[in-house]
């Protein structure tokens, strides 16, 4: 049953032209969710992480309010360790769309010189991502934050609501989630409490790629294969994006044709060897080699329940 083309059934039932396709339904649902949040919350913000999921979510948001602009700003939590290409792309993309972009870096972490090489991935992620996000939400008083997370990414996400309630300490309580029925979302909350809203909850990685291809959504070049300087550490290919990366003696960056399946802090994001330079080529690779996209993320490997633990602590 491991045929790469996923063909299973004997007969093929094509969607009739009278029916919405799965991408149309997913898009319509995401638009509904985004509009509902804007109607029921006082001060929403869209978390913009520059990755492909963010790109798809932002594209949906642009459609949701057309011909007006989305009535909320974008927020990027900048750990200062993102790929340089991501920052360039972020600034030009927000400018092209005419949206307000807020950038927040944890000033305490910055002053203490927290980074993945000196402090390890766990401390770095906690201080520069989790704590920084909480700071930013509190600083601007946002009561709802859109995120591009999908339920197929990880086991604890599969149980999270689309409108995910957070207490005043930004913590997620998996056992106290509000039942979510039909397309009725309960966005009521007390002052200080907030919501994380996930419009792409029901999308899979393949849906996102198909949508990006169908809608011609621009992405950072890092998603497409190119010759890049990498070193191999613990079986993971890490790109040497700037001279802050300490090299062991005898360790020399090698030029390899690589791309990234997810984007994050460059020291924590593994590259895959690839020659796929277009979206169809990427899809082709996905269909022939099925590893989960988070495999390249160093922060998820610590323990089976690591994501759930981080979410309870306020990670997005």
């Amino acid at each position, binding site marked *: 049953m491991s045929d790469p083309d996923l063909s*299973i059934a004997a007969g093929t039932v094509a969607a009739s032209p009278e029916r919405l396709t*799965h991408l149309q339904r997913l898009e319509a649902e995401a638009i509904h969710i985004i509009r509902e949040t804007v109607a029921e919350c006082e001060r929403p913000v869209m978390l913009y992480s520059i990755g492909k999921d963010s790109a798809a979510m932002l594209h949906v948001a642009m459609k949701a309010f057309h011909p007006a602009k989305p009535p909320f700003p974008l927020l990027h939590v900048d750990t200062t360790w993102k790929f340089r290409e991501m920052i360039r792309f972020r600034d030009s993309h927000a400018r092209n769309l005419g949206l307000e972009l807020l950038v927040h870096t944890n000033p305490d972490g910055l002053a203490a010189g927290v980074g993945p090489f000196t402090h390890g991935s766990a401390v770095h992620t906690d201080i520069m991502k989790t704590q920084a996000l909480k700071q930013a939400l509190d600083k601007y008083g946002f009561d709802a934050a859109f995120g591009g997370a999908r339920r197929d990414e990880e086991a604890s996400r599969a149980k999270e609501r689309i409108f995910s309630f957070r207490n005043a300490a930004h913590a997620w309580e998996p056992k106290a989630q509000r039942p979510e029925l039909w397309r009725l979302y309960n966005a009521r909350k007390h002052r200080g409490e907030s919501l994380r809203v996930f419009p792409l909850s029901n999308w899979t990685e393949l849906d996102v790629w198909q949508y990006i291809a169908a809608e011609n959504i621009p992405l950072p070049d890092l998603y497409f294969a190119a010759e890049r300087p990498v070193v191999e550490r613990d079986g993971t290919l890490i790109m040497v994006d700037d001279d802050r990366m300490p090299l062991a003696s005898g360790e020399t960056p090698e030029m390899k044709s690589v791309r990234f399946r997810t984007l994050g802090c460059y020291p924590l994001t593994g590259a895959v060897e*690839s020659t796929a330079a277009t979206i169809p080529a990427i899809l082709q690779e996905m269909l022939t080699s099925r590893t989960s996209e988070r495999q390249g993320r160093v922060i998820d490997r610590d323990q089976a329940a690591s994501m759930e633990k981080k979410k309870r602590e306020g990670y997005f």
Partner: protein
Amino acid sequence: MGDGSLLHTDIDAWLARHQSKDLLRFITCGSVDDGKSTLIGRLLYDTGAVPDDEIARLERDSARGSAGGELDFSLLVDGLAAEREQGITIDVAYRYFATEARKFIVADTPGHEQYTRNMITGASTAETAVILVDARKGILTQTRRHSYLVSLVGIRRVVLAINKMDLVDFDPGVFQRIVADYEAFARPLGFDAITPIPISGRDGDNIALISARTPWYDGPTLLGYLEAVPLAADTLAGRPFRMAVQGVVRPDLNFRGFSGQISAGVIHVGDEVRVCPSGRTSQIARIISGFGDLDTARAGQSVTVTLADEVDVSRGDVLAAAGSPPESAERFVATLVWMDEQPLVIGRSYWLKVGARTVAVVVTGIDHRVDVNTLEHHPATRLELNEIGDVALRLDQITPFDPYEANVDTGGFILIDRVTNATIAAGMLRSAERRADNIHWHAQTVDKTARARLKGQRSAVLWLTGLSGAGKSTLANRIEQRLLAEGRHTYILDGDNVRHGLNKDLGFSEADRVENIRRVAEVAKLMADAGLIVLVAFISPFRADRELARSLMEPGEFVEVFVDAPLAVAEARDPKGLYRKARAGELKNFTGIDSPYEPPLQPEVHIDTTLTSPDAAADRIVRLIEQRGLPGVDGDGI
């Protein structure tokens, strides 16, 4: 990484084919040991939805587990750390897989004590249900329960998946007996189609491929069924047009668009539509979807429409086919599924959200409770967690609706607690209740403002809440004396003049206390309408009841005064000797002793009686009242 040569030539064809898939949402229902997680894990595995690294992990984990080295597919779907420890699933989880024909979203819900809440939640978005039965056990109480719940949310087509056929040697007799039992039981539930399939989730028989071990079976595989079953959207497009307005898009003065997701029907530019509940009509001028215009749009699409005329439309209104609009009403008969630890209390005010509309609602009566195991009806005075019943509702606004059977979006609703904001119930509107139709609220030329101005004042309801002995009545009397001296028209409602007359039929149970306060609030509202300044001095221990009273009054009219005395102080005062009796066990349900007091979170006035004398407190409140001036003169409330 493979070079993909196998696909190289037809990736574009593949993309085109997969762009045009449709989408089916379904739910699996089963008890703890029916093998539900194994079945879902098997579906994911057989359709290639499990990445290679997860399969490697599965092989590692299976070797450690109880399946003796065979792949334990249930490990693929057991999500949270807490569940792994307990070996059960605790909540609704959603899984994703796809075939050439369709993308699938499966709601995975647990089969144990929170079954009703979780199953109703999972089923609310599902179009079909896979009901699992263990071939060794046949139809159990749980099977009946799951089938009833599935039918309750309107699922019309179900699969009866008779699992673990490998453990009964694929005996067709066992299969046929279970099918006959089920069809007999399910007849009153009125499913359009029941499709029985003999399967083994563990071994994969009749899941993706027809099994060689069931030569006597000539129906579809489970996946074959799921790929071919008709979609709910197919019938929705044929129903009258409905769209709940989520918001108004107004980028500039020349554009005013109304956004929403079409829940039924088809619209074209030029179609006549009716705005509900106002009843005004206009024509569709433009249909905007994404960055462009459409000539037509159908059920399921999120669009923004503009109308040919400048009619008043706001969030919560429903745009409908002009010729077949929804009914509008404020009293309803509905089925409620109670989902909160706190039981439903008749008379208490909750929020109701239907479509994009949120209104205050009171449950005015419970017709009956349904035993989910036997489907029998029982009389009930309350609904507890996971109980289901038919109730009467009174909304505080005229609201457009369709019966749930006709339209899920205009007939399905949730209830939200006014204090905790929790989602406490799901409901299905059945019909409007006609009883109150002949009472019309005529717009009176002699109105509240006119009456109050004649008295030279502005109506107000001063709601004094606090423990027995806190000093509410003392304070109310002082305030009334001051106001009288200023020439104001007032009245005090307290236990002495209400409990002995209007409410003498009520005792001190929780339900009676809620009804007591509800009546007092309604009387206060009438007196405020008469132009009076009403002083209410009741312990009124529950926040939700005070919020109900507040919701009845106009903005700024309700002034909550927290008369705050610590329990020890109030008990030491004990002016009527009640605390002594309560401590002695002669009085039950006494606030502060064996019944809780919920202090106001944000009262307009907070009087700490250990620091403030009654006279000083009365001064403060009278100043507040006098500063409000006359209605229609200075306009500002408190």
